[in-house]
């Protein structure tokens, strides 16, 4: 087990930068997820850690060693691939023991370890099967067992659950997380599925266009996004454009088309009348007629433009002054205004985040 440090890591292809300067410190035993849309450089970053791709600039450290120029077989990292990459000509037992053979472990010890791992991934009795004789989920487990047979210092996983159906994927998310905790292996995980990232990670690095937009715990990223991109990528959110006109009582004051609004938390260092964006999650918005504008609440009036019933909740779109659209989520039991009704939407300033405008 070890820490991983990426230091201004870059990978350029001709004209484009696949990874444009990523700096990350990953703690010993941590489960860190690289989360971002397709093409943002997640796989490239992971493959630079593994040593399959040489960075154009920057360094990779594992523990106390600078491994930037070391080939993959000397890095003591291991990887679980999206298509598992199980050796098709070898049995499950031979697949799992592949790295042990390479390290010249005695036959008896290999057999013992294979049995132990199959127990761990809940596949005992499958030693003699070939990969083509396993289901997708079983192949995934074998790939994981193979990767940890000789415990690596760092485990890398590139969308390892991407090929599974939703139900199996959720089961495997829990399983992988359980095993990772149990073994305490430093893990870098890649996914573009924000729910998966939230569920599994100690910390998430939200990536966009080759850079890390925000690094933090799932809660921090959800509740206190640092950029519009990070806010929009994780969960759904309302954006309100405006200008920051001041700061008082620990609150930013922002002039928007829908009036003067306040935000408690802000990632931006604001000077003068800077263009900013306010962000608030739909579940923090309430409809009430009772005035709650005690300075700790924001308030906007508008008309219900659309509503949809989603089982456990009702989603409303409220159109306010200045063509502003607000998504509001109400619990299914709440009073549901008809379309066109004039409503007053309010939410706590504590749940309002001020972001620099793009």
């Amino acid at each position, binding site marked *: 087990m070890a820490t991983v440090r990426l230091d201004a890591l870059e990978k350029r292809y001709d004209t484009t930068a696949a990874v444009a300067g990523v700096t990350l410190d990953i703690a010993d035993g941590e489960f860190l997820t690289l989360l971002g849309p397709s093409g943002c450089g997640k796989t490239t970053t992971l493959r630079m850690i593994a040593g399959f791709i040489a960075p154009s600039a920057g360094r990779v450290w594992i523990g106390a060693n600078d491994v930037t120029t070391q080939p993959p077989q000397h890095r003591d990292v291991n990887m679980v691939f999206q298509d598992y*990459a199980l050796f098709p000509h070898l049995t499950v037992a031979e697949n799992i023991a592949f790295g042990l053979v390479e390290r010249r472990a005695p036959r008896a010890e290999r057999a013992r370890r294979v049995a132990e791992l199959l127990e761990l991934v809940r596949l005992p009795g499958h030693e003699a099967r070939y990969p083509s004789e396993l289901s997708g989920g079983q192949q995934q487990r074998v790939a994981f067992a193979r990767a940890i047979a000789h415990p690596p210092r760092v485990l890398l996983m590139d969308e390892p659950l991407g090929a599974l159906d939703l139900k199996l994927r959720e089961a495997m998310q829990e399983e992988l997380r359980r095993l990772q905790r149990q073994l305490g292996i430093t893990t870098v995980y890649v996914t573009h599925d924000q729910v998966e990232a939230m569920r599994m990670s100690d910390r998430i690095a939200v990536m966009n266009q080759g850079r890390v937009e925000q690094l933090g715990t799932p809660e921090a990223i959800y509740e206190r996004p640092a950029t519009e991109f990070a806010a929009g990528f994780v969960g759904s959110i309302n954006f309100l454009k405006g200008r920051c006109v001041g700061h008082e009582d620990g609150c930013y004051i922002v002039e928007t088309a829908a009036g003067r609004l306040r935000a408690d938390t802000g990632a931006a260092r604001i000077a003068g009348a800077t263009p900013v964006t306010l962000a608030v999650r739909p579940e923090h918005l309430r409809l009430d007629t009772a005035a709650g504008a005690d300075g700790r609440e924001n308030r906007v009036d508008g008309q219900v433009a659309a509503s949809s019933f989603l089982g456990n909740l009702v989603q409303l779109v409220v159109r306010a002054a200045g063509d502003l659209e607000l998504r509001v989520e109400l619990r299914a039991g709440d009073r549901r205004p008809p379309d066109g009704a004039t409503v007053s939407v309010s939410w706590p300033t504590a749940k309002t985040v001020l972001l620099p405008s793009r």
Partner: protein
Amino acid sequence: MMARALSGTWLALVFGFMIAPLVVVAGASFGRGGRTAMIDFPPHELTWQWYLAIPGDQVQALALSISLALACALAAALLGVPAALGIVRGDLPGRRAIAALFRLPLQIPAVVVGVSFLQLYYIVGDVIELPLVGSFWGLALAHLFIALPYVVGSVVAILNRFNMRLEEAALVLGAGRWSTFRRVTLPVIMPGVFAGAVYAFMVSFSDLPVALFLAGQGFVTFPVAIFQSLDYDFSPSMLALSTLIIVFSFVVMVVVQRSIGLTNLLHTGGAG
């Protein structure tokens, strides 16, 4: 119903066409032999006699052809795999030209190949003072020339479909380049190598035009022996020997189909 009957008839016709020459040879090999025709089909009277009368020099020619074909298949596999790896994986500037070069022998008529090698061997043989014409290695080399494209072709085909993640997985499991090749790459491309080698064997074994030029006194391959015997001393034991070869080829084919078919099954499922 109609369509099925039609396609059934059609299939039977094609099958009959494919098998007719073989049936004639096999049938006639059991015939006593007519007074007028050399080939007695359908046989008037059944006999084993021609099987017992196969001349020793023809058996010798057959043995020579088989060892030549084996040498050719082995050499083609040993040279073809690195060549295919270079074509698919290498970063040489002239990769496409090299790939085209390896297909060239397929486009040259075999007779021309025979003449070319004859000329080449006269020149080179003079220089190194070794008779290449009429020698085992001389002919083996010429057969390697016409057989190599088959191995290169089939290995290139399988390498193009090769999942590079397999090699990366081996690398992170601690295997070096050579170990990765030996334990992963080679076993995975083996069906392609094997199929190419079987082709190479058949190309060498059945070659007449090249061998006609390069055979010599006391050095005669099986096809050349048959060809020559047709000219002057035809005997139905030729048919008997041919029948044995047909049976042997059929057995080999079934075995190859079984083994390759099975490995293919293992290689195409799920992962990979």
